[in-house]
């Protein structure tokens, strides 16, 4: 019975995601009728390069600008949420977010280096990605003590590595010319302004499998969250599975951050919201958080690009909406969810 109820909740969330898709694709700064939007998508999806009855501008806006952006929003929401689920389980701490091991600081560092020294680095996106992975690897390396890695040491070294990389970002900001400074600031606030099909494909290719893998290991994550010794007692080698899950979550989060910049709060909020619906079982929290995160980011991005004439950075919207929600959730429902 509980299973049926949870399954129904998951289906409702999927419906919600579908419902959020329509306003996201229809609305925008440039007014295109809903029917026109769908006929363009339908025709393009069937492989027609030049659908009849649609202006060139409409086609470009719907197919080349809005659709990849919507896909990217969904992928990024899934990536951050499911990475949050994996990190929280691995570190046995419901307040951990995907940036805890230095993903965001590393990516910011890489992005700012690439912006300030464009001739020395291969491009903002790839540099941000490489630096994000590098930061996490350094955190992991520092936390290693006699072959063992304790979650506390890992979180601590993540904070330290994050501080180091942030310091480099500070240096870059100091050195940057005015336009570069503006670019760095915008990059760090996060947004999907430049979404292309290449970005969407890359994100889907990495984030899809990462999500499935973390979902598949949801039960492992439950056992792991009890602590290393208990996990061993239940037949799970905690070191291996933690390395695998952290690696997968980091990869997904790094791809997402390198494409979209730093989008705050989703990775912390979506897992909590999912736990509110499904309870703590990660076999349900993983898909629930992924869908909730996707819906949330899709809605926030739609708001970001339609609320005012100029676009608002996505990271600002997610924080403004997210922080009060999390506060409400913890104050009103914290007792139920966390048993205090």
């Amino acid at each position: 019975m509980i299973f049926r109820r949870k399954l129904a909740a998951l289906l409702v969330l999927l419906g919600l995601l579908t419902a959020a898709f329509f306003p996201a694709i229809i609305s925008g700064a440039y007014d295109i009728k809903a029917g026109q939007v769908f006929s363009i998508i339908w025709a393009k999806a069937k492989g027609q390069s030049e659908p009849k009855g649609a202006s060139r501008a409409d086609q470009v806006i719907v197919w080349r600008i809005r659709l990849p952006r919507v896909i990217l929003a969904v992928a990024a929401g899934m990536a951050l949420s499911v990475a949050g689920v994996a990190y929280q389980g691995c570190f046995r701490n419901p307040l951990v977010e995907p940036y805890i091991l230095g993903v965001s600081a590393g990516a910011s560092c890489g992005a700012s280096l690439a912006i300030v020294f464009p001739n020395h680095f291969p491009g903002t996106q790839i540099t941000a990605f490489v630096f994000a992975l590098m930061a996490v690897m350094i955190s992991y390396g520092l936390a290693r003590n006699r072959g063992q890695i304790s979650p506390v040491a890992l979180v601590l070294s993540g904070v330290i590595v994050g501080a180091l990389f942030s310091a480099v970002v500070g240096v870059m900001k100091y050195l940057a010319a005015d336009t570069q400074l503006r670019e760095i600031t915008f990059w760090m606030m996060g947004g999907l302004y430049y979404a292309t099909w290449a970005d969407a494909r890359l994100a889907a290719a990495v984030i899809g499998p990462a999500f499935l893998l973390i979902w598949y290991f949801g039960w492992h994550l439950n056992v792991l969250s009890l602590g290393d010794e208990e996990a061993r007692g239940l037949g799970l080698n905690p070191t291996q599975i933690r390395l695998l899950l952290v690696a997968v979550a980091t990869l997904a989060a790094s791809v997402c951050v390198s494409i979209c910049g730093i989008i705050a709060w989703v990775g912390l909020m979506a897992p909590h919201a999912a736990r509110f619906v499904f309870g703590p079982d990660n076999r349900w929290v993983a898909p629930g958080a992924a869908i909730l995160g996707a819906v949330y980011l899709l809605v926030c991005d739609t708001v970001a690009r339609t609320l005012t004439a100029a676009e608002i950075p996505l990271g600002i919207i997610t924080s403004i909406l997210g922080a009060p929600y999390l506060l409400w959730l913890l104050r009103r429902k914290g007792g139920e969810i966390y048993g205090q």
Partner: protein
Amino acid sequence: MANDLVSPVLVGADLPSPSPSASELGVDQGPAYGQDPAFAHDPAGHRDGVGERALMKVREVRFSYGTKEVLKGVSLEVKPGCLQGLLGPNGSGKTTLFKCCLGFLKPKSGLIEMDGVSIGSLGTRRLAAKVAYVPQEHYPSFPFTVSEMVEMGRFPRRGRLPILSRRDREAVAGALARVGLEKLAGDSYVRLSGGQRRLVLVARALAQEAEIMFLDEPTSSLDFANQLVVWETVRSIAAEGLGVVICCHDPNHILWFCDEVAALKGGRILAQGKVGQTMGRDLLEELYGRSIGVEKVSGRTFIYP
């Protein structure tokens, strides 16, 4: 109850000389203790003649943290149907011995084997299907329900997909019924009382369907009635043929509920054997380094300061 008062038997006055009999295991157990008349009969009804085949054999295990040697050649046997208490002061190496037996720590030397195979070569998952662990009081970071907690006992027997089979669900339901908590299956584990939480952990170990169960101080911080419930549950589990080893700080509990005892001090086994023949005032005084009284009241033996 007042009429039941019998004149206390003073023990220790006529202790027989320690018997020099070699250990059944053929290993050095230190001086033999006991044969205290106060323990000759025990109303708890310690079972004799439990199976001779040992489920787990621990031989001359040594372990050190850095340069500090914590286990200095410990040998032990876990027998089916036997409830074995592990007694010893703080820092005597009980927990370390537990962790070695459960595969959490790798002994520096010596051997721990099951069915003639070293547990080090079994792998975490196969070992967990044979040896279950009931940890001390803990508070998980996430508020799993009681049934979710017990389901995790099926983890070592999982299939390729993280889905419970009918067999798994039956084992979970059976284990919950066994400890009398089937009505709480949907409740949050962290909201239960301390005694109920211990029983959930015992149920999880039962769902594991292992041959041996190790319990780390299962009654610490429980009230008197809950301590009795946990002990009675554990006794009945041993009666069904599991080998049960309990780390315990109350020598009275070992006297009342255990079949056998192993006393550990300074990383060595001081004495081991049947409770009635091993637990005596001299052993306890040696263990804890202070004078201890032992008396028999209403047919039961009590240890007091």
